[in-house]
């Protein structure tokens, strides 16, 4: 990538939030006129329990540089236990992503209540700055660009055969 482009890199952050707490918290930040980076794209879900790990994968595949998942504090779930289930699921999912080789600094989980506009600003700003310093997420995008495993000619015999054509 050209240096000029690197300097203007703006991270794309996808935030999966629960409608009862974090969405209201983000709304509060807005109505209180707090400033936070516009890099975040908020997607509203009924509950963190509705957020399937495959959404996070899909976000990365579609070009997200960072993903934020945020919902109600434990015990405050509108559906009583959705966030408890989500907590276990994401604890395991991030271990899986780590094992496959995804940098976990790009994936942030948080509890932000409807009253915590300030915390929302802090979480979003922190993640945006962290991802900005890391540069674009290229792993999943490169995968999408690659056609076939057999496309690479990496053995001397194959290279020789190819050259002789």
């Amino acid at each position, binding site marked *: 990538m050209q240096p000029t482009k690197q300097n203007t890199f703006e991270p794309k952050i996808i935030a999966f939030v629960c409608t009862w707490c974090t969405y209201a918290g983000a709304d509060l930040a807005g109505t209180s006129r707090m400033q936070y980076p516009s890099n975040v794209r908020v997607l509203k879900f009924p509950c963190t329990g509705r957020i*399937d*790990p*495959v959404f996070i*994968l*899909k976000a990365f*595949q579609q070009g997200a540089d960072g993903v934020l998942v945020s919902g109600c504090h*434990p*015990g405050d779930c509108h559906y009583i*236990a959705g966030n*408890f*289930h989500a*907590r*276990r*699921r*994401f*604890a*395991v*999912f*991030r*271990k*899986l*992503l*780590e*094992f*496959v*080789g*995804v*940098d*976990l600094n790009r994936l*942030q*989980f*948080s*509890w932000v209540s409807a009253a915590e506009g300030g915390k929302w600003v802090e*979480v979003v700003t*922190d993640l945006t700055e962290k991802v900005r310093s890391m540069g674009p997420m290229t*792993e*999943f995008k490169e*995968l*999408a660009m*690659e*056609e*076939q*495993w057999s496309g690479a000619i990496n053995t001397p015999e194959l290279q020789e055969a190819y050259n002789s054509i």
Partner: protein
Amino acid sequence: MTQPIDTSIYAAITEAIQAEAHRILAEGEVTAIVGYAAARRKGSAQPIIITDAADSVKLIFTPACVNNLAVYLTKAKKDIPKNGKIGIVVKGCDLKALSGLMGESQLKREELYLIGVPCAGVLASTVCPDQELTGDSIAPKCTECDAHLPTGCDFVPAETLVTPELERKYAVEIARLEALTPAERWVYWKEQFAKCIKCYACRQVCPFCFCEQCLCDRNKPQMVDTTPRPAGNTAWHIVRAMHLAGRCAGCAECERVCPMDIPLNLLNRKMAKELKELYNHEAGFEVLDKGPLNMFTEKDDQSFIK
């Protein structure tokens, strides 16, 4: 590592299985038995379903009996138990899968007659099915087996097993990968997943992949790209590992059937290790009402959440 493994008791086990199968079929206790029979090549074995007591002499148990027969009671074949009680020959790992299926209400214990097999191990590959079972030729899952002797079955041949201590192949490989940087691991898995041809053999053979419509087959919305290209392959294998987390019994059938030799069970073992560390859960013979990801405690670790 060419440590020989004693399989001399397998002949006695075969006889005991045959005698028991004959008895329960003749007495009408079961309507059918799922077991192993000799296949055409010398030393090889294949699954068989017998319904006649006279056929019980066909049943065998050898190191080539690699299949997890639990898969014959799920999916398209889930009507089979409705025809009466079914006998099934199970190794320890297969029994863990059956226990998991019972916990998920896919099978009922009273519909089954379990014939447990004390198993010292099976072959990793059945390319040469009549080879000796040694520390080299044994399936990697058997090097970590903690379930050589199934318990809670209706019948287990009374044979004494000798199981030598072997190098734990998955644990060694997981430790090697964990020591790498995320970028190095990504390179490793990228190469592995790129081999995938999306034949879905791993899904078809898995006793736990019993969804009538797989998330990965749906196209509205399409969550996972279905073409055998690197992006969709990676997503498929991550989703597969995630959906099996806390459920996988470790029978390693996915890895055995993979035509491209992707180390699929490595992902499953890693998830099992994490679940053991996080929630002290291990697949076992006990039938659990809820798996580790279907329940929670208020004190679960949340150090990773801001």
